[in-house]
């Protein structure tokens, strides 16, 4: 009898397995995205600083000002703030709130919530807090600096900063407006609701957080009372799929609508697949080469100049980084105010050799640490080959990301190859780290500045120019200032921007208006539609 039962069970099981299941496409009102979301640590906008966490908050929260996914060129636009006015002396900005907007809880969005959200972010002082505190806010003074009155909100600054600088920073996720009443109802001790918000949501954005299961999925549902109109997509499901080939198979089968971590090989094979298309979008990350100025050889100006000609820009973007990166030799990514398109350097071993021999340099050996990521190791190896041709020996030690980062922050990586992603949508985000380093001593411990990590003593004139650019009210002039800084940077700096990241999203043919956020922000789902 026992035997009989189990064999029946087996038969049933195999019948179930073999019956072809109906794999239709995803429902018309549901957007299914495959992405590696294992980086999410927190969903509290005052704390979140990871790509995938920002991708969620971008859609569940609104900010005073924001980007229009269908017109990214325009830059920030009114969002929860209907309008704003800069004081004559440039020392404060007053925002007028939009009327009739409600949080997901049903509570109205008030100027009080907006002010409290900014107070909260400054007081909690989590990693992204610097985006706000750079305007002179501290836990002690923020309640005086950011005030509300009726439906207006006033932000007082410690310097007459460029309006574009302040407003660009207010598009960052940390400036999200959270529902004060809801959050405070869940506060524990003096955590201002941080513990609760880490896994919950209290925003007014186009989507509500339905579920977050770490390393598995994020589910969003459309907020029907959204002030810009409810989204066409009633559900958005982001599934954690780490493997590119698995993403590709899912997309081919129509089980997902978008695949966000495809390798060049999978992109290439998908580009000929029926029903699927690839959307290229330049993102903000810059792959650069940092030459540590503590190294005697690398601090020689001739070596710095020669190194710029030893990178096979075209060869690399045409082969192993094809579609993933484009050549970009300035520190502001394309898409930013003041971005510079100049490409002064070409791959020229002969020229590099000439520069070195003119300076009397005959060979030399450098041992560096490279993160064990395929892209970086491949770049390092082509560099190794071209350096060898110019008479320089490069030894590469491969390590994990955490190990390289530790060494880099301790100023112990001779040649750093890796990426830098902007923290907010204003040019100052990169200028302040590439081209600003007021104190180059070891004691300064300015571990956050790339210039410091490479022991690059930024000339005073450049430090000053970087600060001055944050105070220029005229946006055209401001853009010009950043271009000037970048030209000077290209001429003399030992940190050499090489490539800019391109995101290739694999989409089902019927998905329209996909926007991963360009170079300035995170993914947006509100405008996405699905055709026939």
């Amino acid at each position, binding site marked *: 009898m026992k035997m009989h039962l189990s064999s029946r069970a087996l038969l049933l099981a195999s019948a179930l397995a073999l019956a072809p299941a109906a794999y239709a496409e995803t429902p018309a009102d549901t957007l299914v995205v495959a992405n590696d979301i294992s980086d999410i640590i927190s969903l509290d906008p005052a704390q979140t600083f990871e790509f995938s966490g920002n991708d969620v908050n971008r859609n569940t929260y609104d900010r005073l000002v924001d980007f229009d996914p269908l017109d990214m060129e325009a830059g920030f636009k009114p969002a929860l703030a209907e309008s704003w006015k800069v004081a004559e002396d440039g020392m404060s900005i007053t925002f007028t709130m939009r009327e009739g907007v409600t949080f997901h809880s049903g509570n109205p969005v008030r100027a009080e919530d907006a002010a409290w959200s900014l107070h909260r972010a400054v007081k909690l002082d989590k990693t992204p807090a610097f985006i706000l505190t750079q305007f002179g806010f501290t836990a002690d003074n923020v309640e005086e600096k950011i005030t509300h009155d009726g439906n207006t909100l006033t932000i007082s600054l410690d310097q007459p900063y460029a309006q574009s600088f302040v407003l660009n920073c207010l598009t960052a996720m940390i400036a999200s407006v959270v529902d004060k009443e809801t959050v405070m109802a869940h506060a524990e001790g003096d955590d201002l609701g941080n513990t609760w918000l880490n896994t919950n949501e209290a925003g007014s954005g186009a989507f509500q957080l339905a579920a977050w299961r*770490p390393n598995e999925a994020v589910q969003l549902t459309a907020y029907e009372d959204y002030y810009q109109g409810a989204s066409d997509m009633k559900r958005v499901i982001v599934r954690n799929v780490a493997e590119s080939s*698995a993403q590709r*198979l899912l997309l081919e089968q129509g*089980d997902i609508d978008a695949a966000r971590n495809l390798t060049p090989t999978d992109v290439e094979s998908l580009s000929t697949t029926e029903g699927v298309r690839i959307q290229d979008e330049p993102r903000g990350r810059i792959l650069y080469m940092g030459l540590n100025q503590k190294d005697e050889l690398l601090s020689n100006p001739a070596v710095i100049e020669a190194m710029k000609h030893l990178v096979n820009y075209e060869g690399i973007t045409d082969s192993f980084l094809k579609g993933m990166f484009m050549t970009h030799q300035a520190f502001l990514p394309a898409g930013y105010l003041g971005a510079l398109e100049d490409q002064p350097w070409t791959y020229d071993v002969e020229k590099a050799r000439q520069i070195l021999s003119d300076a009397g340099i005959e060979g030399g050996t450098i041992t560096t640490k490279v993160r064990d990521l395929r892209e970086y190791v491949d770049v390092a190896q082509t560099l190794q080959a071209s350096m060898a041709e110019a008479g320089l020996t490069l030894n590469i030690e491969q390590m994990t990301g955490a190990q390289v980062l530790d060494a880099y922050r301790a100023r112990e990586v001779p040649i750093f190859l890796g990426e830098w992603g902007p923290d907010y949508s204003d040019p100052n985000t990169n200028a302040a780290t590439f081209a600003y380093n007021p104190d180059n001593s070891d004691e300064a411990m300015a571990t956050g500045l790339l210039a410091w990590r490479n022991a690059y003593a930024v000339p005073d004139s450049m430090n000053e120019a970087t600060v001055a650019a944050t105070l220029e009210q005229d946006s055209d002039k401001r853009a010009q200032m950043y271009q000037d800084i970048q030209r000077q940077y290209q001429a003399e700096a030992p940190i050499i921007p090489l490539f800019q990241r391109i995101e290739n999203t694999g989409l089902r043919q019927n998905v329209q208006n996909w926007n991963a956020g360009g170079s300035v922000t995170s993914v947006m789902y509100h405008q996405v539609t699905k055709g026939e």
Partner: protein
Amino acid sequence: MLSLALTLLGLLLVTFIIGRVMPIDPVLKVVGDRASQAQYEAAYQAMGLDKPLVVQFFGYIGDVLTGNFGRSISTGQLVIDDIRHVFPATLELATLGTLIGVSIGVPLGVIAAARRGGIIDQVARVVALVGYSMPIFWLGLMGLLVFYGILGWVGGPGRQGIIFDGMVPSVTGLILVDSLIAGDWAAFRDAFSHIILPASLLGYFSLAYISRMTRSFMLEQLGAEYITTARVKGLSEGAVIWRHAFRNISIPLVTVIALSFGSLLEGSVLTEIIFSWPGLGQYITKSLLAGDMSAVLGGTIVVGVCFIALNLLSDLLYRVLDPRSK
């Protein structure tokens, strides 16, 4: 029982020490690359890393004894909630994998031994060799490509199809069981179509091991004198193999199966990655790489308890199988 508790304590201590000497800074994982020195210090203290290692360790043990497993720094959730979520996923996969491995591996091993050098023995050898040497990564991707991509017989990566996601109320966390409890056949069918491929893959690897072990145990028995005696008595070949020889190998076989099941319960990291299976293996590995000690130790406790439970279970089975031990 005391020795079991000590074993568990030792296991935790070793894991803790390895985790702490690893050149990974858990604070950086929490605050990120852009944090200021002050923010870094604040997180360092909040995580209790400024205390001596001994204090940290026994503080942790004290918390565990009161049921507090801490909070994971890489998911931001309570470790106990994380484990409640990832362990059923692994348990479901490992159980089905072991069932497949045992139900094919044991008969295959017995027949291979009985017909030594015969065609089945040769087949069993090739099967085992491939199972031992084929990288699971490759085999998993090929399996997906053929059975999901080309033939469409099974579901893709993940535990469930999108439509069924979150539709079945979670009782045990085992989706196959939960969907049966809910009486939702469509969900059961969907979950089965998703689990069958990774389970078969794991089953294949444990089959390779179990069939080889079964074969060598059987060969040992079949060469013994009592088998010759039984044959001389004129017993049928089936009775000789199954009633005499097989009963005698059942005890070592239980040990082998328990070990193989235990190793699957630790979670198979590569399989979990390929099939986007949110299981224990990925959880522990990811936590370890982030220096997330609460999560790693929580996972270690689960694995340790599983092994201890399997040990106890095997002991019980020995008693049932071996009349002498009564």
